């Protein structure tokens, strides 16, 4: 009962052709599909994007495929150029043999366009496409002094970089009035030119090459331009664009476009039912894509469809619907980003731009009439690329003037708008005063507080003081340490790793092995949090309780008069009538002030410490548990009613919010964690202002990370799209655990992500592509957290030794007489305490 194994032949072994073999083998083993690849170049597939690094020393290995690798995965390689294809007989002629196929894929790529100018075949003329081309250019450069590249686009500038590496006096000749005409506008091109000329590369714009001049021996001597000007050069590289290699397909009778390219539909099918085309040789919807990313997408689509057609794979058909041409790249060390409608051709579009002729930077955003980002350009500095691309892709309406998207941030990281920002509003201290104090010798936040008074009021500016101090010290050329405090010469991340690797379980062990002195209010809670993250033991256990700030020590939030607030968990903000009544009854019995919070739960304020265990007992009896409102841990997962009730909802946001809140409750982290789940793009749960936010799409869920409200509002960035609920959970498990492992003390996810080297791309590499091989560990740590979670309130009320700590006085049953209430709008509020700091210490009469 042996049916013959179907045979697929791929013509071409470039980057896309190679990716196709990988995609095919992912779905079909050698006993399900015979696979033959025809490779014209002597080398198997290599990374053409980084071609110029072939000239680096040491020379990097650019190969993507190897003979051994293909052998192992059952891919037969036929070396040679395919001569002919017979679509009726279903055969390919190559290297003297005839291959019969069941399906054929063209991945023949493109060839460099060489304009038809006289002299273009002279000795010393080259194209820039293959490793062989580069070897030839290197050989010719040995006896040459100067080289000219015809073409000032992306590839042309790459080629110019290569000539410069070879030590040639380098010229770039462009027909258009500015560089990179396909991506940039005039101003962006000017900024790029400025920087490139600064590197010693000469740029000649608006030049139409009339001929390549040659000497008597037929060697290149230079270029003659229209209008009579000329440029001397010993070698010439043509890099004026690419053309699809469709000659083989054309000769076989496949439909091709008027200006070249094998016609394909969304399934990557050509005009023949057994033939497909992918990559730069294909023409889709009137367009040939010269970038590798769309080629990879086509490879993925073609792999699924061809296997379906061969009866090897049972999957729904895949579609290529065109690709976004947004790119971010580094050309000659200059960062260039171009996204969406970069040139502002949408009717009614408005462009806002900022250029710096000294730094050589240029930024532009294009905004629609109704205030959405349509696209933009970044030259010289692409730090904002991911944010702006995200705004473009999501079509988020702007709530700020568009110019604020491209203005560089002020030093210190504070969200300030004036040059001399008011950093401490309690004590009225400006940045200039703080910088002066640092200049006069202040080297830590404590001395800044002492010299200037900043941070001694509400303390909300202390993180900004840290940031400013680091920036200023770096500017003054001083060594900046990120040591936790005087007791530990480690950053939080380093301490986390050392505790994890050594397996320390208590403060005493950690202090003895790595610290000094008796610790302090900074390192104790930090170590307490790390131990809780790693081992999941109760924070109020006797060995851990002394490390906790009062909130964690008493599992409630301290208020200005020393009483506490109590907040039961209300997962996803969903609460029954009985639950509401029970909370109301507790509030009434203990005389508590009630307030609905922004996190969709109910805060009960004014509880005496010695009432806390009894309050919890009643709440626990009504089915509640700790809401961890006091911890550096997950607070709430806010949600809208979603598709269950809302006429606009597309997914059940409440159920997902409940699931996430119950999964991550109690997870101790470097700072508090907030989340939201919105059931549609209207975003009623404000998920993008959260540490992790999830927004429903028609197809699933989009996950956003690193958002923040508070002092420095930040929109969360898109991490992944159209995930299932389970995929959301897996991704968030890793994201949260990676944050817990690597963030600084009291660093929210937004600043963590901003400071993460490599940013969102790096994060994706770690938690999606598993580049560090960490995912299994992160998954395991989260599984341990979920498995060991228990309600801290219940643990505390059931342990008489812990309960005893809640007494106000160790030697009396009295209560704190300093706690005084007055009535306001029918509820209690703390009476103002007399004689409060700051007292008028000096002066007076």
């Amino acid at each position, binding site marked *: 009962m042996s049916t013959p194994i179907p045979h697929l032949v791929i013509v071409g072994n470039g980057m896309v052709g190679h990716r196709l073999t990988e995609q095919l083998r992912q779905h079909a083993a050698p006993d399900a599909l015979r696979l033959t690849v025809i490779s014209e170049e002597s080398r198997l597939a290599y990374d053409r994007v980084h071609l110029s690094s072939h000239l680096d020393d040491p020379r990097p290995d650019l190969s993507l495929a190897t003979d051994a690798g293909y052998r192992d995965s059952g891919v037969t390689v036929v070396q040679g150029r395919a001569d002919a294809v017979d679509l009726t007989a279903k055969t390919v002629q190559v290297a003297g043999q005839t291959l019969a196929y069941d399906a054929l894929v063209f991945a023949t790529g493109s060839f460099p366009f060489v304009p038809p100018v006289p002299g273009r075949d002279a000795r010393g003329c080259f194209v820039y496409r293959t490793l062989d081309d580069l070897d030839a250019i290197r050989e010719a450069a040995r006896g040459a002094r100067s080289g000219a590249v015809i073409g000032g686009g992306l590839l042309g500038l790459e080629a110019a970089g290569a000539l410069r590496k070879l030590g040639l006096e380098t010229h770039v000749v462009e027909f258009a009035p500015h560089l990179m005409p396909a991506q940039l506008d005039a101003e962006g091109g000017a900024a790029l030119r400025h920087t490139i000329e600064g590197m010693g590369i000469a740029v000649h714009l608006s030049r139409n090459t009339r001929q390549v001049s040659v000497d008597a021996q037929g060697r290149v001597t230079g270029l003659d331009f229209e209008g009579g000007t000329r440029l001397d050069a010993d070698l010439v590289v043509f890099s004026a664009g690419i053309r699809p290699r469709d000659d083989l397909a054309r000769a076989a009778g496949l439909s091709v476009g008027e200006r070249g390219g094998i016609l394909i539909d969304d399934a990557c099918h050509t005009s023949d039912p057994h033939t497909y085309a992918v990559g730069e040789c294909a023409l889709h919807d009137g367009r040939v894509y010269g970038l590798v990313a769309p080629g990879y997408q086509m490879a993925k689509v073609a792999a699924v469809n061809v296997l379906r057609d061969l009866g090897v794979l049972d999957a729904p058909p895949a579609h290529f619907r065109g690709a976004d041409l947004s790119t971010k790249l580094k050309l000659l060390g200059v960062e260039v980003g171009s996204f969406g409608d970069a040139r502002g051709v949408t009717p009614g579009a408005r462009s806002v731009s900022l250029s710096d002729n000294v730094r050589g930077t240029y930024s532009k955003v294009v905004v629609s009439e109704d205030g959405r980002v349509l696209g933009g350009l970044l030259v010289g500095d692409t730090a904002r690329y991911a944010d702006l691309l995200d705004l473009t892709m999501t079509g988020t309406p702007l709530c700020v003037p568009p110019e604020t998207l491209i203005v560089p941030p002020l030093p210190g990281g504070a969200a300030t708008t004036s040059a001399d920002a008011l950093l401490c509003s309690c004590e009225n201290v400006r940045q200039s005063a703080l910088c002066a104090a640092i200049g006069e010798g202040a080297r830590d936040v*404590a001395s800044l*507080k*002492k010299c200037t008074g900043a941070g*001694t*009021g*509400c*303390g909300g500016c202390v993180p900004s003081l840290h940031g400013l101090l680091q920036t200023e010290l770096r500017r003054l050329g001083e060594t900046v340490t990120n040591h936790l405090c*005087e*007791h530990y010469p480690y950053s939080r991340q380093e301490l986390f790793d050392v505790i994890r690797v050594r397996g320390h379980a208590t403060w005493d062990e950690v202090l003895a092995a790595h610290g000094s*002195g*008796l*610790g*302090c*209010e900074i*390192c*104790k*809670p930090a170590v307490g949090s790390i131990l809780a993250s790693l081992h999941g033991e109760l924070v109020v256990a*006797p060995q851990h*309780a*002394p*490390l906790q*700030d*009062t*909130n964690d*020590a*008493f599992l409630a939030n*301290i208020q*200005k*008069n*020393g009483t506490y607030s109590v907040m039961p968990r209300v997962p996803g903000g969903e609460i029954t009538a009985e639950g509401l009544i029970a909370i109301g009854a507790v509030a009434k019995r203990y005389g508590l002030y009630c307030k609905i919070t922004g996190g969709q739960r109910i805060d009960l304020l004014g509880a005496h410490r010695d009432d806390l265990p009894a309050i919890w007992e009643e709440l626990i009896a009504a089915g509640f548990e700790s809401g961890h409102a006091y911890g550096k841990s997950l607070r709430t997962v806010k949600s809208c009613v979603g598709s269950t009730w809302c006429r606009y909802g597309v997914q059940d946001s409440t159920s997902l919010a409940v699931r996430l809140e119950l999964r991550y409750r109690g997870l101790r982290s470097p700072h508090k964690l907030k989340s939201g789940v919105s059931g549609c793009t209207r975003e009623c749960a404000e998920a993008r202002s959260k540490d992790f936010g999830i927004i429903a799409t028609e197809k699933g869920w989009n996950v956003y990370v690193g958002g923040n409200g508070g002092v420095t509002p930040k929109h969360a960035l898109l991490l992944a799209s159209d995930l299932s609920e389970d995929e959301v959970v897996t991704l968030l498990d890793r994201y949260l655990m990676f944050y817990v492992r690597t963030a600084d003390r009291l660093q929210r996810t937004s600043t963590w992500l901003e400071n993460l080297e490599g940013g969102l791309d790096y994060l994706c590499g770690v938690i999606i592509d598993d580049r560090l091989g960490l995912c299994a560990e992160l998954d395991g740590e989260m599984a341990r957290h979920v498995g060991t979670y228990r309600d801290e309130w219940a643990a505390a009320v059931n342990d008489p030794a812990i309960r*005893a*700590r809640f007494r*106000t*006085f*160790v*030697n*009396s049953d*009295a209560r*704190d007489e*300093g706690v005084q209430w007055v009535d306001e709008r029918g509820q209690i509020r703390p009476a103002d*305490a*007399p*004689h*409060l*700091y700051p*007292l*008028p*210490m*000096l*002066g*007076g*009469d």
Partner: protein
Amino acid sequence: MTLTAPPTHPPIPWTRVCALDDILPGTGVCALIGGQQVAVFRLGGRVYATGNRDPYTGANVLSRGLTGSYTVSGETRVKVASPLLKHAFDLESGLSLDDPRLSVPVYATRTEGGDVWTGSLA
């Protein structure tokens, strides 16, 4: 408002506060002695006592602060940080580390047969 005299701290009689075991090492408790709130800390093998009122906020919370050590001019000293706005006080001198014009009262302590005693020095 005019400059007021610093708050007076009436002496407290020598009193047994609790068993040493009632205080978790590294933490504090609050005792009520003659109407005064006294914070009693167990730290690094010794016992310290201060007033319980945080002069920055007026709240009686110091016994709930995190204890620790700090180094000044090469000397290691002990401190407690208020749980409200984290202002720290030297446990032996009572002086605020943020503003030396402010302080909390300090009291003498001794441990006797597993019990903790505190009181004003003569």
